[in-house]
Structure formats: structure tokens, C-alpha cells
């Protein structure tokens, strides 16, 4: 997606027409031939058959559960047998009045904002650094990316062991002669959220860096050469050329990061467990859902929480799409209608 939009921008700014014209030409050359040999019905059949399996899977495992969750959310339901105790919107009212849900929502908001503020700039800097020719570049790239590949369960278990009051990090501080620096990393509400942000950043920054590196590859070398000839400094080049052309990639990454932060569950649940997340100030809407839905065997209520989480994510996604991603995806989405 980022490559596409980079190409679009490129055509506007520096017009190396050969590239995009060649692409268009290839497309045009093949499509009339394909269209000529087939009736509309054949084409529709083919679409149905090729897209069919995916659609069946999508409807069964994505759409249906969402609709069922919305349905179950109207019941008080212990999870055994079909739900019978219809209570209308009462579950939703309970959610909106519950102060522990407000806390969880606030923690989600903090995580969304801090993720963008901490990971974004750091990842851009790292990507710029790693985009240069230097010794050991691929080793560093791998090291930064590895945490992203490791399962959240392992990451959570490992960090929680290290951050416990009698864990490796406090032990290290004591051995380094800084015993007054030791703190309760996980259960002190003033510190726990920062511990969580540290782990999230460590885990997910590799993904951002890889995305940005890919985005950087899409910026044509000629622009940098031209800038060099014009006598632009390193920082001028980055600010005027790299960052604007990396924009589409950054905006897509920010989108993924926000959705991921809203749905954060595994790390918190593994490190803080079922109940301590709430007192440590790291609970999220997803952990709230599991604790008050599944663990309390109030499945109707849990489904209502799932719907609230879904709607909040959807609103954020659509708003972002409409106001931020709009310009990047304009070409990609409207091209087919031409």
C-alpha cells in the first residue's frame, strides 16, 4: 500500500513518467483481451467461485460472531444453553456506569497516545539510521525485529520475571550500587503503566522500523542526488524529502498501532493477571471483558463489552480513514471505477 501511494506522489512531484506509464500500459494491454472473451455472467460466476470460499470463511468466522455477540449482549446469560433472560440495553448501561470500565478505557487511551509518541519518532530515527550503509546493519535490523516475532506469552512471562520486585532488574540495580533506584515495577500504579509502555515499545518497534525501512526503499535515489547537488544539509534532506515521502507509511503504521493498542490484551493479562491490572492501572477494555465476562461467567455481559470495544475501534478506524488515510488511499480505492 505504501509503495503504491509513493508511486502516486512520485508522479506528481518529479514525474519520471516512464515508470507509471509503463505500468498503466501493461494493465490496459491485458484487460481488453480478458474482457473480450467472456460474458458478464461468466465473469460473475468466476468471481463467486474464486471469492466464495474466502467469503464463506469471513462470514462464518468474522461477521457471524460479531452479530451473535451483539445479540447475546442483550441477555443476562451464564453461558449454558441458549440465552433466555432478555434485558435489553441493561448490560450496556452497566458498562457505561462502571468506574472500572472507565479506568480501562482511559488506560487504553493513554496506551494509544503513548504508543504513537514513543514508538513513532524512535522508529523513524532507527529506520533512518539503519537505512545507511554501515557495518553490522543486518544484525542490528534482526535484533530490533526479533522481539516482534516472539510470542506475546513468552515476552510477557520473561518481562514479568525480570520486573518482579525480587527479579533481575532490581537485582541488577542493587549490584550496580543503586539500591535506592529499585521500585515495584509492576504493582505501583505510578510506574506500572510505564513498565507496560517499555515492554510494548520494545516488542513492537521492530514492526514499525521494518515498515519504515520498506517505505524508505520506495523513495527514489534521484531526489537525494538532486538535493545533494543543490547543497542541502543532511537534516534538510530528511525534513524536506524523506519525511514527507515516508508520510503514507507513517500514517498506515499509526493506524495499525492505534487499533492494536485499543485491543491490547495478552501482555497485560499475562504480566498482571486477572485482577491486579485494575489496581496497577494497566487494565484495558479487553482485560475488563475477560475478567467480567468469561471469568465471572457473565457471558451476556462479556459480549456487550465486546460490542462496545468493537464499536469504539470501528469509529476510530472510520474517522481515521476519512480524515487521515483519505489522501493516501484515494487513488487506490477509486481507480477501479474509472
Amino acid at each position, binding site marked *: 500500500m505504501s509503495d503504491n501511494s509513493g508511486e502516486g506522489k512520485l508522479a506528481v512531484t518529479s514525474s519520471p513518467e516512464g515508470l507509471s506509464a509503463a505500468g498503466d500500459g501493461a494493465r490496459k494491454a491485458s484487460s481488453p483481451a480478458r474482457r473480450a472473451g467472456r460474458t458478464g455472467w461468466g465473469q460473475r460466476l*468466476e468471481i463467486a*467461485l*474464486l471469492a*466464495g*470460499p474466502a467469503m*464463506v*470463511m469471513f462470514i*462464518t468466522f468474522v461477521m457471524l460472531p460479531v452479530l451473535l455477540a451483539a445479540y447475546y449482549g442483550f441477555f*443476562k446469560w*451464564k*453461558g*449454558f*444453553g441458549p440465552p433466555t433472560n432478555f434485558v435489553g440495553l441493561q*448490560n450496556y448501561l*452497566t458498562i457505561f456506569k*462502571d468506574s472500572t470500565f472507565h479506568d480501562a478505557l482511559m488506560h487504553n487511551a493513554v496506551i494509544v497516545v503513548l504508543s504513537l509518541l514513543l514508538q513513532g519518532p524512535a522508529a523513524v530515527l532507527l529506520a533512518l539510521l539503519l537505512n545507511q550503509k554501515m557495518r553490522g546493519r543486518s544484525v542490528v535490523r534482526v535484533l530490533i525485529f526479533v522481539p516482534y516475532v516472539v510470542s506475546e506469552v513468552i515476552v510477557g512471562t520473561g518481562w*514479568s*520475571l525480570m520486573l*518482579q*520486585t*525480587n*527479579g533481575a532488574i532490581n537485582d541488577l540495580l542493587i549490584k550496580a550500587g543503586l539500591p535506592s533506584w529499585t521500585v*515495584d515495577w*509492576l*504493582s505501583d*500504579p505510578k510506574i506500572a503503566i510505564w513498565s507496560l509502555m517499555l515492554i510494548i515499545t520494545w516488542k513492537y518497534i521492530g514492526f514499525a522500523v521494518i515498515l519504515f525501512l520498506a517505505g524508505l526503499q520506495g523513495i527514489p535515489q534521484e531526489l537525494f542526488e538532486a538535493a545533494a547537488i543543490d547543497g542541502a544539509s543532511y537534516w534538510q534532506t530528511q525534513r524536506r524529502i524523506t519525511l514527507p515521502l515516508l508520510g503514507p507509511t507513517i500514517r498506515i503504521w499509526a493506524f495499525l498501532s492505534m487499533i492494536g493498542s485499543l485491543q491490547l490484551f495478552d501482555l497485560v493479562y499475562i*504480566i*498482571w*493477571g*486477572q*485482577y*491486579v491490572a*485494575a*489496581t*496497577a492501572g494497566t487494565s484495558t477494555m479487553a482485560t475488563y471483558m475477560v*475478567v*467480567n465476562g*468469561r*471469568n*465471572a*461467567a*457473565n457471558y451476556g*455481559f462479556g459480549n456487550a463489552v465486546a460490542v462496545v470495544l468493537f464499536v469504539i475501534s470501528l469509529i476510530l478506524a472510520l474517522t481515521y480513514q476519512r480524515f487521515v488515510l483519505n489522501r493516501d488511499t484515494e487513488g487506490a480505492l477509486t481507480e477501479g471505477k474509472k
Partner: protein
Amino acid sequence: MNRKKILVATAALSIGALALTACSSGGSSTGDSSSAAAGGNVSMTFWHNSTTGEGKAYWESTVADFEAANPGVKITIQAIQNEDMDGKLQTALNSGDAPDIFMARGGGKLSDVVTAGQAQEVVVDDATKAAVGDAAFSAFTVDGKVYGMPMSILPGGIYYSKDLFAKAGITGTPATIADLEADVQKLKDAGIAPIALGAKDAWPAAHWYYFFALRACSQETLDKATADKKFDDACWTKAGDDLAAFSKTNPFNDGFLTTSAQQGAGSSAGLLANHQAAMELMGAWDPGVIASLTPDTKPLADLGWFPFPAIDGGKGEAGAMMGGLDGFSCSKAAPAECSKFLNFAMQKKYQEGYANAFHTLPASKDAQSVVTEGALVDVLASYNKAPYVSLWLDTLYGQNVGNALNAGVVNLLAGQADSASIVKSVVDAAAKE
């Protein structure tokens, strides 16, 4: 020709996808209760929570013996980690794909399962009935019918390291909370973490509240709350106040809020097993858990036990205990061999094996002589004298209220709430039920 092949393949794929989804939603008719009469092959699935060591081996050999004694019966064992059990079981029961034999602890949780028509009555033979006695069966009885077979009785109390007590200059065991607080101070002075607590799992923290409630509330109050779940008696707040006052003395290990209960050397049981902490409030499964976490995975030699201390001004009878039972139930669709297997495992030989493998107390009185570990002998003596034994409150009051109690107690211990908030969180929970 080529295209035709592709079309056929695609069609096959989409039909396959349809079949797959049909399977996943239509699996509710598995299980066959008529197989016993037919005399043919019977197969059952069996879920328990001993994923390692002697307990796992015990079930494997017991099942093998049963299969040998009952040709044509095949039992497939699945061991599931304890903390995962509730959720997995609920999902399985609900999807109609329930295990035939599954672990259950009686009380409100089992009652929910029975009310939903997901469990069947267990046919208890006379020998088992006599060996176990009514008290243990009462936890598994719903509307006068027995829905589970108790395997072990698990009364709670405080396990402690005799060596660490001696090191801190403590002689004897505390009889009152004031004594306990004095001992906590002595242990701290000696540089020993007094009490290990796995509050990350919440239920071990909640046990502290339950025991204060057991001492503060009369038996009638506990029973009344089972029915109306109002928790309006003043003793519920008193229990919270007593716990808050006790926790102000900082009796628990550093970082207890993020300490888990039973997993690994850093857990509360692990701290006891490695002499990193002196005490832990737990049920009678604790010696087994501790044994699996000692450096040589042998039972802790200096492990002792004393009952939860008395408090001032409580309405609970002295000597009353709180505890649980580990037992097994048969799901609705299980074959008749399920009851047969449970009675089989209640024979003296297997109950003795159970007590040995799990380092715990067998439900069958015939097998109690096998208990020789010091701490367990003391538990058993107290249990046999107790005027009454209440179920753990989370088991007694069902999952929803239990969950709220757990959360309320964690808030209290984290210093973010007072005793009234425990009662309030129970009332809030009722709104979600």
C-alpha cells in the same frame, strides 16, 4: 480444460469450507449414553488438572487399571493446567463438546452446571457412600441428588516452615491474630519474608478475606448469603476491616500483588518450598504443590500447619474450618461407565494412591491412615474435630460473586479500597449476572 479444473477445485474448496463450518456448529450431538447396554466399545474423555509428576502418573495408572478391569471401555485422559480449567470447561460444556468425566469442586459453580442440564447424577455405590460420609457429598448435592464424587478433602489453614520459625525465635504456633502479628514482626526482624501470597491469581488473596469472614460471621450468616447474596450483615465489613488492619502490618512478601500462586520458584508456594518465606494460607493441596517446587522435588521436610487464628469479637464458632473438595462429575451425555469409573477410583487402594500422589487428604475415611506427612496429619486432626466446614466462599457463592470477591480483596490489599468496597463489588457483580 484447464479452467474447468480450476472451477471444479474451487467448487470443491467452497463445499469443503461449508462442511467445515457445518461441523463446527453441529457437534452438539456427540456422546452416547446407550452404549453401556449395547455392551460394545465405550469411550470416554476425562479432564483433570495434574499436568506433571506423580498426580499425572496416578491418573494414568488408575485409568489403565480400570480399562483392564472393564474390557471394551477406553478412557482418553486430558490434563489441563489448573488456572485454565474453569474457562476451558465452560467453553466445552457450552459448545456441547463436554468431556465425559471432568473435575468439579461443588458449590455454586457445579449448581450452575446442573441447573443448565449439563451434568448427570452420579450413582454412588454403598461401599463408597459409607467410606466418604455425608459431609463430603453435601458439597456436590443439588436438590437432593449427588452430581459429583469427592476425591479429596482440602481444608485450609496456614502452612509454615518450622526451620524459619525457629530461626526467628518463634516457639509454638499463633493462636490469635495478635500472636500472628507478633510472629510476623519477629520474622521481619530476622530478615525473613513472613507470609507468601500469590495475589496475581487473586483467589489466594481472597482466601485471607474468606477466613476473616469465617471467624467474623456465624454459620447462619454464611448460609443466608448463599441464598440471597445480599452480604448486608455487619460481619462482612468487619472481615474486610480486620484484613485491612492486618495487611497494614505488611505481612506479605514484597511484590505479592504480582506473585502467582503455584507456578514456578517465584510463586508463593515456590517461596515456601525454597525457604524464601515462612508461611502461606492455603488448602490441603499445598504440601503437594510445595513438594513439586522444592529443589529436589521432594516434600518439604520442615513443613508444619496450624489453623487460622482466632479473632476478637467474631461470631464464627471456634475451630470452624473452610475448605474445598476436589471431585469429579459426569457430563449429561456421558455413558453409565462414568459413575462406574468414579466408584472404582474410590476404592481404598486407589484413594491411598491418590493421597500419596497428591500429598493430600483422601475423601475416603478408609484411606486416611495413609496420611503420614506431619502437616497433613495436623490438618486431618483439626478437620475431624471441626464443628462445621464451609466451602471456599467463591466456590460456595458461584463464579460471578466469587470473581467479585476476588477483585474486591485485591483492591483492598493494593490499598485502593476499603472493606465497604468488597461488599459493593459483590452488589455490582449481581447487576451483571
